[in-house]
């Protein structure tokens, strides 16, 4: 059979070694020997014996493919298979938009503060249990968000623990996360989190104290940086089984302060007890990095933390993301306090994106709009089709596309919403190579 180089393979040098990575397969290999190097570079409609090395491994890694392979069609097939997969369900659930902070940039602050009731809770639980009972269901994930979900932890705890037991009874894997500002914490709250069977907690800092305390505040909480760090320490002590993810929003303004944050985390003995996730602060403000600028700064941050002994899951970043965005994944829903339903939380600012509502007895009534979301396809975009990074981002956030006023003005076409990995992929692979044990 005739073979050719994959369109998604990248060859690069690192510390006197040659490596090859394929964004479509996610494989990385160290290749040595001039013959392999040159063989890869010259493979173009070449008849090779794939039962012998090096071609056997080059095929295994997806580095070379049968000559007539349409790799974009393969990616589209993988995406379709995963986006309609029935075995996994992901929910983001907000019981109220109430919050004890008033961050200057919050996109929820002008929303009507609906707080759902206990009647709503029983309807929600009935709906979730119905989803668990579906015979295809193998795994359920819930992210409890807000508002500030700790204000409603009793209600979350009741629903979450009941659902956790229900999933166990039906042999369905269950994971739950709470995304909180972590200003509210006490030994009692820790106990409640443990009883609620919450697996993961995500909290965000907007940089070191001097910057964070300019934004993540309210009249009740004029400063929250030290409070949040104290509360993280308390959680580590009282709920050792809890996975804590510290998201650090990165901006042009707070970047110079982040070495101080690394020191504060070390002082509190949080190194590798918590996981770090960086995120680009996003707006049209000059304080924010462009995606490309952010990508370069993100690598500096990873290296700074690694130098201090932190570890990261780079494998996750290098694994193809065939399921694509939650907004066009069949069994992915964001549930609002009034039990109206969206495909993704990013769409919650407008009623026009609601796809249905959970009614009496926990039955979801769809309004016919879900198909519009499910039909979104990043491969409709020529820039994405031409991009070697496509399998890693699958077009990024679908919301930016669907809310774009015209296809010619799509954020994706402008590259505004591209994933940072477009600009720092090789550095991420090198970090994986350097830190993989």
């Amino acid at each position, binding site marked *: 059979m005739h073979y050719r180089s994959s369109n998604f393979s990248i060859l690069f040098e690192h510390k006197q070694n040659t*490596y090859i990575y*394929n964004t479509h*397969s*996610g*494989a*990385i*290999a*160290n*290749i*040595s*020997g001039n*013959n*392999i190097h040159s063989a890869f570079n010259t493979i173009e409609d070449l008849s090779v014996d794939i039962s012998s*090395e*090096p071609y056997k*491994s080059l095929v*295994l*890694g*997806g580095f070379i493919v049968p000559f007539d392979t349409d790799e974009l069609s393969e990616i589209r097939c993988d995406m379709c298979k*995963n986006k309609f997969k029935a075995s*996994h369900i992901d929910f983001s659930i907000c019981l109220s938009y109430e919050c004890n902070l008033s961050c200057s*940039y919050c*996109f929820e602050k002008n929303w009507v503060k609906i707080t759902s009731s206990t009647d709503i809770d029983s309807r929600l639980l009935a709906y979730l249990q119905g989803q668990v009972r579906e015979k295809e269901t193998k*795994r359920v*994930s819930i*992210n409890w968000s807000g508002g500030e979900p700790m204000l409603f932890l009793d209600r979350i705890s009741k629903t979450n623990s009941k659902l956790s037991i229900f999933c166990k009874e039906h042999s369905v*894997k269950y*994971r739950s996360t709470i995304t909180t500002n972590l200003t509210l914490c006490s030994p009692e709250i820790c106990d409640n989190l443990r009883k609620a069977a919450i*697996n993961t907690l*995500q909290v*965000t800092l907007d940089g070191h104290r001097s910057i964070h305390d300019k934004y993540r505040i309210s009249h009740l909480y004029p400063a929250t940086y030290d409070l949040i760090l104290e509360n993280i320490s308390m959680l580590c002590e009282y709920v050792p089984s809890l996975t804590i*993810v510290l*998201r650090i929003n990165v901006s042009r303004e707070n970047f110079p302060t982040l070495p101080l944050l690394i020191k504060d985390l070390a002082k509190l003995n949080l190194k590798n007890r918590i*996981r770090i*996730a960086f*995120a680009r*602060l*996003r*707006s*049209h403000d000059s304080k*924010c990095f462009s995606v490309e600028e952010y990508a370069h700064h993100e690598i500096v941050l990873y290296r700074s933390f690694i130098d201090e002994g932190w570890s990261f*899951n780079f*494998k*996750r970043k*290098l*694994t*193809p993301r*065939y*399921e694509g*965005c*939650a*907004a066009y994944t069949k069994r992915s829903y964001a549930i609002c306090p009034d039990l109206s339903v969206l495909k*993704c939380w*990013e769409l919650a600012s407008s009623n026009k994106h609601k796809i249905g509502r959970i009614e009496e007895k926990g039955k979801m009534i769809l309004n016919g709009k879900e198909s519009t979301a499910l039909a979104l396809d990043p491969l409709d975009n020529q820039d994405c089709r031409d991009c070697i990074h496509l399998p890693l981002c699958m077009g*990024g*956030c679908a*919301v930016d596309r669907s809310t774009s006023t015209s296809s010619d003005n799509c954020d994706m076409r402008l590259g505004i919403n591209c994933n940072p990995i477009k600009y720092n992929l090789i550095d991420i692979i090198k970090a*994986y*190579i350097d830190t*993989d044990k």
Partner: protein
Amino acid sequence: MESIVFLLLPAILTGDIATDDKCDTSDFIIPACTDVDES
């Protein structure tokens, strides 16, 4: 010596695609789409 040594096997072989078990990864709740939106 000619050799190819895998540091990371294809995701399809390691099950990362087949099972898509994000629950077992450290940062499954941090997709790109959770960037703070200041709009």
